[in-house]
């Protein structure tokens, strides 16, 4: 059916797109600056330079932006449209979701030739996002716990007190570091999948993240 008409459909609301791109930008900044914090290069020419100081400043600023963005997205999952709602992230709890997930998996594994079109998130992707969300939580908790050590009598240090009993100081660093690589791995997967489905679905997968509109063969559900 190559010539069937497609319908324009508003899927991603503005807050969803904002959060997505804030996350993307802050993750890039966090990874680059974070990598330099872990493995610095002797950029400084004189002791009055502030190279590492600025790198850390950008890291912490991006960390706050990321945390606020993530919190906003969680809030929006309670008030936004059906595609952004929190239910979309637990597809494996419904028979329909499990069925769609299986179809998607079969397509990815070359077992099926039929492209399973999804209007909002595809259920396999939301499962990955759920795992990613926990990874984000680990990053935020370990990151702010490490950050709070500069003021061990502060509110943040007290609020994250449980982290210091769960992790040793160095264990916290290692966890923060390894989680970064998992997020890098996710980003590669994510960009590839978006690119693939953009080609296969002909639904404007990638441009939908800018415009909010997708093109589907069905007018309504």
């Amino acid at each position: 059916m190559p010539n069937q008409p497609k319908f324009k459909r508003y899927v991603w609301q503005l807050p969803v797109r904002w959060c997505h791109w804030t996350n993307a930008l802050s993750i890039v900044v966090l990874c680059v600056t974070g990598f330099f914090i872990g493995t610095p290069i002797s950029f400084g020419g004189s002791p009055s330079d502030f190279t590492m100081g600025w790198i850390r400043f950008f890291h912490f600023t991006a960390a706050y932006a990321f945390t606020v963005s993530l919190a906003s997205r969680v809030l929006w999952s309670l008030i936004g449209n059906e595609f952004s709602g929190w239910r979309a992230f637990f597809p494996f709890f419904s028979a329909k979701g499990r069925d769609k997930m299986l179809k998607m998996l079969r397509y990815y594994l070359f077992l099926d030739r039929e492209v399973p079109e999804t209007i909002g998130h595809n259920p396999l992707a939301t499962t990955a996002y759920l795992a990613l969300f926990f990874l984000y939580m680990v990053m935020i908790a370990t990151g702010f716990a490490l950050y709070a050590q500069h003021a061990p009598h502060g509110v943040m240090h007290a609020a994250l007190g449980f982290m210091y009993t769960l992790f040793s100081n160095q264990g916290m660093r290692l966890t923060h570091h390894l989680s970064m690589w998992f997020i890098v791995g996710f980003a590669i997967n994510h960009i590839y999948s978006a690119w693939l489905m953009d080609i296969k679905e002909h639904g404007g997968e990638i441009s939908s993240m800018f415009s909010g509109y997708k093109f589907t063969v069905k007018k309504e559900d």
Partner: protein
Amino acid sequence: MGKKRADAARGRQAEDLEERHYSVGELLKERGVSRRSFLKFCSTVTAALALPASLAPSVARALDQVQRPPLVWLEFQGCTGDSEALLRSANPTVGEIVLDILSVDYHETIMAAAGHQAEAALDKTIADNKGKYFCVIEGSIPMKDGGVYGCVGGKSHLERARQVCGSAAATIAIGTCASYGGIAAASPNPTGAVGVKEAVPGATVINLPGCPCNADNLTATIVHYLVFGKIPALDGHGRPLFAYGKRIHDNCERRPHFDAGQYVEHWGDDGHRGGFCLYKMGCKGPATFHNCPTQRYNGKTSWPVAAGHPCAGCSEPSFWDTMSPMYRRLPNVPGFGIEHSADMIGLGLAAGTAGAFAVHGALNALRKDKEPANRDENKEG
């Protein structure tokens, strides 16, 4: 009547001579420590306690009047490094004063008594000064197999610790071994070694970790108790905040080089000779809470980072296991060989993912797909 009163007075005097407890001030005068040295010591200790300088006279006044508390020092599964640090502190007056303030009734390394005599002295101190004496413990307590791996005088360390710590005013766990088990508790911990607080959970324990502990912090802790009548405020790991309240990294003299981006890259390079930051050489200053940068060791002479060696993190719980490798930033990843850093694993992960998707993409380019259709069985939403 008059004779009777005089007799009574004489009797009291004789009693006084026998039972006389010297105050610290009197004692120091008797030992020939000048008033000036004493006041200097009071200022030093006030600074070590992170109290304002204006409190130094109060410290001096309190120490003038206070009676020296009896102290027993127990050597358990340790290397005596903390005793060494105390006895060989570079400034002899401070060291002397520490010993003079305290009535050290039992200390295995330095006491003259031996054998049953010594054990009897310990038992007497404990019995006579219930709830009033200090107990300093050096070394960890082996718990495995009923604590058979450490015995003195036929009593296991665990047994002794329970007996002595239980009725002490406060127990000071000196050094990392006594605080958290130290090297004896490092993996695989064959003797089941633990710190004092873990072995005797009911005791009032002040942890003074460090390998060795800085003797100034011990003196300051005891002075705090003598002056204020209570133990200093402690952090989550049972360490006094005045000494362990700030991170080494945040008070380090090499910190400007860290912020500037000037690092030692190799031992003995220009940066190393120039006093640059030791971050890349595996310095654990960013993970360690201690007052080394300000208090320093051996009468404020030096400390590891000042001498050009990265901090090993010796005052943190289980540092032998968690802070290693000593000369690397991050710990090894469990399950991977020691030559695999977290970054190599991460890079491999990223490259593997990219490679897998490249192959997946190529296969996708080759296959002929069925386009999405508006059929009932394919309804999505």
